[in-house]
Each structure stands twice: as structure tokens, then as C-alpha cells.
């Protein structure tokens, strides 16, 4: 991607009452992309968004819009709009006036305001709700008003802070699709915050995985899932089997005392590494054919596949398979070399950390 970033965060640090919330954060966001900040509660996602919106001033570091430094630009002058975690609709105004708020304070003419509000409410499916007070709307409808209100300002970038967290599962799926479609058709850059990894993987062009105020990995959903850069990412995204292993030499890793061929090189010889194997990548074979053998300890039917726990080599493997093996069965486990993901141990992550941004 040779485009220039639309927003750049450089070396951003932030602390509250001596507690470090963001630590030397670097992040570039490109025009028209859907970027998701993903991480557990309290990892600093909202704070990052607020720094971009202008509601929080970082202790150090710079915020750029294009190549203009905007650290001192107040929120109302920034070309971004926010959808707040709890919607923050104005309770004293009806739906129409909520959506029209931004245009009214910018003194747009009446006809233009009416036309835009109408277009926005049509887009979010709330035409006819103009006169309703926001407190009479359901959570999903309030969410739509918040979206219409933010988009009515025609922002270059939309910031969304866990916008769907309060909705029930079905509605959430629906809104995920709608938001994604809106983003594509309007061509607006979305910076989306969530702690739901599935949501992040399905909606985003790029995912920024955060933990403890530090970016752990930036990449496409597929990269993040298939090639986690460290144990945190592997553990946070999807289900996984995590091992502490030894890189015997290039293309060979030892886990649980067994040598597994792999495709990774450059980790040195006999170096400790972290290894992740996804549950769907563990193949069940007859016991005599397995790279390692074990006993099925539990079995749950999940619809498309079975979820099994298999005790092998002193580790409880999580295995997803369409083949069913009864509890107590002796089975062999195999893993294709390309499905073994090798990662540096955490102390060396920092050295590598900055190279990850791709």
C-alpha cells in the first residue's frame, strides 16, 4: 500500500494517575480502510480513539491528519466523527434534531439540512421516526440514530467505540453487515473498536491487536489468525493449543518431547520458542500412524464439527474434527508442517515488535 496515511499516531504515550495506559503507540491508518482496534477490556482502545477524536491529550507523542500535526486542534475542528460507546444521543432532542445537530451548529441552510437528515434516516432505515424522542427508541434504533447523526456530518473518518456491544446477537450480526456495507459504499475510513475477536475478523481490512496499552500485532484478519506473532495474539484470537517448544534446527521443532517438521526458519538451533497449533489443524489418525498418541477425554458436538479434548504427551489438546472418536478412545494426532506456527518467546518480541507493522 503506497497511499499516504490519513491518520498517523506517532509514539503516543498516555497515563492516568501514574498508571500507564498507552505505551509508545505507533499506528498509521489509510484512506478508505476498515481498521479495528481489538483487545481485552482496559487495554486502551477507547483511549486511543479519544486521542484521535481530540477528547484526550496524550502525555507525549503526535497525532497527524494527513501530514498536519493536530495535537492542539479541538475536537469540533477535527474532520472525524465518533459513535460513542453508549450512543450519547441528546435526550432533550427528537430524532430529527439529533441527526441535524451537527449541520445546525455549522449553520447549514434549512433545505440542505432537511435533505441530508432525510437521506441519512432513509439509509439507516428510520424514516418516519423524525419526531420520536430518543428515549422511546430501542437499543438498535438508537444505534442507528447515532450512526445517522455521525454520518450526516460527512466525516472523512468515522470512529466507532464498541458500537454493537449492547445489542443482542442477531441484531449485532445484522448491524455488522450493514456497517460494513455502509463503509464500502460511502468510502469512509472506519476506525472500529471492539473486544469481540469474531467481529474484528469478519469486518476489518486490518486488525490492530492491543494488550496492556501496547500494540501486539497489526495485520489482515487472515494474517492475525494464521500467523500470530506472539502467545497473546494466538490465545486471544480464536481457540488454540499453545506450547512451549524447542526449535531443534530450521524446519524442525520439538514439542512435548516429539520432533515435528515445520516450515519456519531463522529461529536458531535449540532455542526455546512458543508454538501455536489451531484445533482444526490437528488431524485424527489411527493410533499407530500418529506423530503423537493420546486418549480422548471429552467430546462435545458443535454442529459442523466435534470439539474434543485429547490428552497426549501430558498436554490437553483441543481438537476440532468432523470425525467422531468416543471418550476413552486411543487416537493418533498429526499436524501438517505449514500448520505449525512458531513464535519468539516474549522477551525477544520487543526487538521484533516494530517490524510487525505490515
Amino acid at each position: 500500500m503506497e497511499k499516504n496515511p490519513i491518520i498517523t499516531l506517532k509514539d503516543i504515550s498516555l497515563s492516568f494517575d501514574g498508571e500507564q495506559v498507552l505505551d509508545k503507540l505507533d499506528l498509521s491508518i489509510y484512506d478508505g480502510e476498515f481498521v479495528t482496534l481489538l483487545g481485552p477490556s482496559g487495554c486502551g482502545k477507547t483511549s486511543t480513539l479519544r486521542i484521535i477524536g481530540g477528547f484526550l491529550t496524550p502525555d507525549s507523542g503526535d497525532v497527524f491528519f494527513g501530514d498536519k500535526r493536530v495535537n492542539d486542534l479541538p475536537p469540533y475542528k477535527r474532520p472525524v466523527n465518533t459513535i460513542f460507546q453508549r450512543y450519547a444521543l441528546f435526550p432533550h432532542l427528537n430524532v430529527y434534531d439529533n441527526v441535524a445537530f451537527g449541520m445546525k451548529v455549522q449553520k447549514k441552510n434549512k433545505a440542505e439540512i432537511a435533505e441530508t437528515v432525510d437521506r441519512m434516516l432513509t439509509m439507516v432505515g428510520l424514516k418516519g421516526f423524525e419526531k420520536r424522542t430518543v428515549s422511546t427508541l430501542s437499543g438498535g434504533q438508537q444505534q442507528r440514530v447515532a450512526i445517522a447523526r455521525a454520518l450526516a456530518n460527512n466525516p472523512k473518518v468515522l470512529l466507532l467505540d464498541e458500537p454493537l456491544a449492547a445489542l443482542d446477537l442477531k441484531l449485532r450480526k445484522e448491524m455488522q453487515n450493514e456497517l460494513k456495507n455502509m463503509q464500502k459504499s460511502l468510502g469512509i475510513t472506519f476506525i472500529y473498536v471492539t473486544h469481540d475477536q469474531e467481529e474484528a475478523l469478519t469486518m476489518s481490512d486490518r486488525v490492530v491487536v492491543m494488550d496492556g496499552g501496547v500494540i501486539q500485532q497489526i495485520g489482515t484478519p487472515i494474517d492475525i489468525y494464521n500467523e500470530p506473532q506472539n502467545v497473546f495474539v494466538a490465545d486471544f484470537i480464536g481457540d488454540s493449543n499453545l506450547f512451549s517448544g524447542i526449535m531443534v534446527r530450521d524446519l524442525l521443532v520439538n514439542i512435548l518431547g516429539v520432533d515435528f517438521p515445520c516450515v519456519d526458519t531463522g529461529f536458531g538451533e535449540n532455542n526455546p520458542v512458543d508454538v501455536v497449533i489451531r484445533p482444526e489443524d490437528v488431524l485424527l489418525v489411527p493410533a499407530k500412524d500418529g506423530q503423537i498418541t493420546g486418549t480422548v477425554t471429552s467430546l462435545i458436538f458443535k454442529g459442523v464439527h466435534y470439539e474434543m479434548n485429547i490428552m497426549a504427551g501430558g498436554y490437553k489438546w483441543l481438537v476440532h474434527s468432523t470425525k467422531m472418536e468416543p471418550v476413552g478412545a486411543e487416537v493418533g494426532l498429526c499436524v501438517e508442517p505449514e500448520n505449525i506456527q512458531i513464535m519468539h518467546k516474549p522477551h525477544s518480541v520487543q526487538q521484533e515488535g516494530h517490524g510487525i507493522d505490515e
Partner: protein
Amino acid sequence: MTNKRNIWLTGPYLVWIAGFIILPLLVILFYAFTNPAGNFTFSNITAAVTDITNIKAFGLTMLLGFLATAICLLLAYPLALCLTKLKIKQKSSVIFLFILPMWMNFMLQMVAINVILEDNGIINMLLSSLGLPNMHIANTFGAILIGMVYDYFPFMLLPIYNTVSRIDKDLINASKDLGASSFMTFLKVTLPLSMPGVISGITMVFVPAISDFAIAEMLGGGKIMLIGNVVEMSFTKGQYFQGSGLALILMLFVVASSLIPGDDEAEASVEGGVVLP
């Protein structure tokens, strides 16, 4: 559904209401429409509204009530805004400072104010030491006004502070996010959302202010007659019938002035009310 079996729990309070609220009201009502001979009459009411001293006292009362309310509002609103910006620890001590006078004996408050305002009181001592001419404040309209503002200020501050501090910070952020400057945000979000508190504060200052007689007596030196003082005097002079007529009229005004803001359809989501910290 209310639990009918527990309704007897309100019994003691109903007895209280009957004995100390309903009964006195009925007595006033009875006196107001009765002449000394014990016959029904409207003359107490007509006398109350036609007597020139009453009308003057009435005008003065309204003026005082209006001024005291306006001054309290102008002092309290900006203060409430500042208070919400303080850290929690500072907040409670500052609020404590402002409601402290409420816990002081009323007579003591009035004496203290007099000591400050007297012809040879603190203000004039300060003026003299600066070589400025002295001011005669004690026992004037101004003294009563100062006393009322002093006494009723917490009743304006607390409801406003309560509503302002309960406004979600993200509503303010959302307003700025949508392009409103701080001033516009105040006009379009903070002010309308704090109206319930403002209305509640106005009622809680205006109503006691127009029915006051004690502050006027203590700080007006008996020279300034408010409608409350006229009522009080009628009763101390034993003119129960005229006094009740006047009291009834005053009561109607009090009820009316607390009802007018009730028409306002201000959002009930943020309610004003006095909550002592």
C-alpha cells in the same frame, strides 16, 4: 402493583398530615371567610387585596423574591458548572462549605449578617480604612435582599449542581464531536439539560422568599413590611380574620408560582432535587 397489605405503614404519616397540615389549613380557610360575628363573608379577602399598604407590601415582596431568585441563579449556575469540573475530593469539601450555613442557627446567621452590614459594622470599617464614604445598608431593602440570597443560596445551588453533574460527559463530547464550540455546546446541550435543576432551584428560592417574614424582620429593622410581615402582624394583633384572608391570598400565589414551571415539559430523565452529600 402496589402492595395493599403494606398500606397501613403510611398510617402514622396520614395522622400527621391530618393533624398538622389539613387541620390548620381548614382553620385558615374558616377564618378567611368568617367575620368576627361568625357569619360567612368575602370582606376579609376583598380587604386584603384592596388595602393600599397590603398592595405595597405585596409589590415589595414580589420584587424582593424576584431579585433574590435572580441573584441566587446568577451566582449558583456558574459555580455549579465549576464544581462539576473539580476532583471528587475537592468537590465534597467545596459543597460542604456552601451548605454549612444551612446547619447554623437562623438567629445566629441573621446576627452575623447584621454585624457585617451595620453602620459601624465590618463593611463600613473596611470602607473607612480605605478612606471611602460609608454605606448605610443595615435595616434597608438591600439588607433583606442580602439576607435572602445568603439564606436561600444552597437551595439554588444544590438542584442545579445535581442536574449539571449528572449530564453524561459523552453528551458534551458528542456535541463537540459534531462541530459545536464550547459555547454552542453550553447553549445547546448543557443549558437545556440542566433546566429541570434550574426550575427546581427557582421554585425553592422564590417560594420561601415571597412567604418570608423572619428575614425581613431581623434585617429590615421592622421598617420594611413584606406581605409575610403583614400576615404575621395581623395574627399577633389578634386580627385572625383579616390575617387569614391575607394568608390565603399569599398561599394562592405560592401555589401558583410553584405550578407554573410544572407546565414545562423538561425531560424527567434528569431530575432536580436537593440531595445532601
